[in-house]
């Protein structure tokens, strides 16, 4: 069971004051939240690296959390930022498929999580760009395979990935 928004905000406020036990609990809870947050949008073998990357970002930028505002939208903004960065860097030909955890995530999402979810970013992309990113950057198909599957030319797949990632990075806080 992952702690609720109010508890996480309280733990973060205590951590900013140097409370180590509170910080330890916060990082563990944030780690579980991030694991669930990324599960559908990151191949399993890359999931833990990304979660750890965000936890380190949380640590480095913990002074930027404003105690008068909710915690999860702050964490989600950092998570989205690191995720888009991750998509840019990710190895282009991975064959691993995502685990099917949709039912688990959907059944447990509350209002805040739905508001800050990664799915909301994809809704704002044209379907051709979202499809190209999903196939190549998340599912790990090659450009050639994605081209065959979508009917787009290889150069169009590349252009759609480039434009889609650019748009995703512009949507990190807005969508």
């Amino acid at each position, binding site marked *: 069971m992952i702690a609720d928004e109010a508890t996480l905000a309280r733990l973060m406020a205590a951590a900013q004051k140097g409370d180590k036990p509170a910080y*330890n609990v916060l990082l563990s809870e944030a780690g579980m939240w991030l694991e669930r947050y990324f599960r559908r949008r990151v191949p399993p073998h890359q999931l*833990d690296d990304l979660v750890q990357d965000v936890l380190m970002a949380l640590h480095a930028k913990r002074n930027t959390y404003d105690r008068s505002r909710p915690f999860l939208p702050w964490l989600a903004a950092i998570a989205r930022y690191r995720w888009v960065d991750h998509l840019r860097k990710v190895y282009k030909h991975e064959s691993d498929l995502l685990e099917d955890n949709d039912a688990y995530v959907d059944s447990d999402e509350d209002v805040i999580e739905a508001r800050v979810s990664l799915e909301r970013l994809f809704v704002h992309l044209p379907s051709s760009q979202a499809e190209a990113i999903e196939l190549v950057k998340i599912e790990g198909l090659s450009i050639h395979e994605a081209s065959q599957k979508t009917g787009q030319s290889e150069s169009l797949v590349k252009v759609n990935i480039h434009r889609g990632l650019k748009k995703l990075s512009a949507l990190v806080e807005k969508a």
Partner: protein
Amino acid sequence: MNKYRDNLISGLTNELAPVRTFAMRDGAALVAAASVVTLAAVMLVEGLGARVFQGQAAPFFWITNGLLLLLGLASAGAAIALASPGVGSRHDAPKWAAAMLGVLPLAALISVFSRVGTGEIVFDLSALHCFVASLASALFTGGALILWLRRGAPVSLESAGWFTGIAAGALGTLIYGMSCPIDNLTHMGIWHVAPVAVAALIGRLAVPSLIRW
């Protein structure tokens, strides 16, 4: 949870130290200090126009500078806020303020093209000087905002770049404008607005790479 993450969490917990949280007022104070330094530099190099203090400036002088002030404050506020991220944050005020300022060059150009001798009217003797001096005056404010963003955690880099450029351009042009001896519609509407547009473009192109983390 795996042992690698456990080790990471233990390590981060051990090195935890209290931090001073980000406050908008600190960013605002930094921008205000940069503006004061800019004002001092302008007074030293250019001197302030006497007509400003003697109430001789044309109404259009105050309208232009008032709009520049609003745009500068709105954009600086947005850039400062972007240092602390959050899904759902929106910063629309600078867009409206920029649209309002954008009316000035349109009015100036319509006014110019309805007369003869267009080139001489648009390119007056002070035009280039005002343009360059306004951009130079934007440097301190722009530097202060970049410094602030680098200390923070901006996640909307392009927006931060635009707002930094617009804020620096608007406040720099406003401060330099206090020393400008020309206050007609054509000069103010074109040469005291163009630096803002150029600074915005420079901000969009240069700032993201400086604040990426």
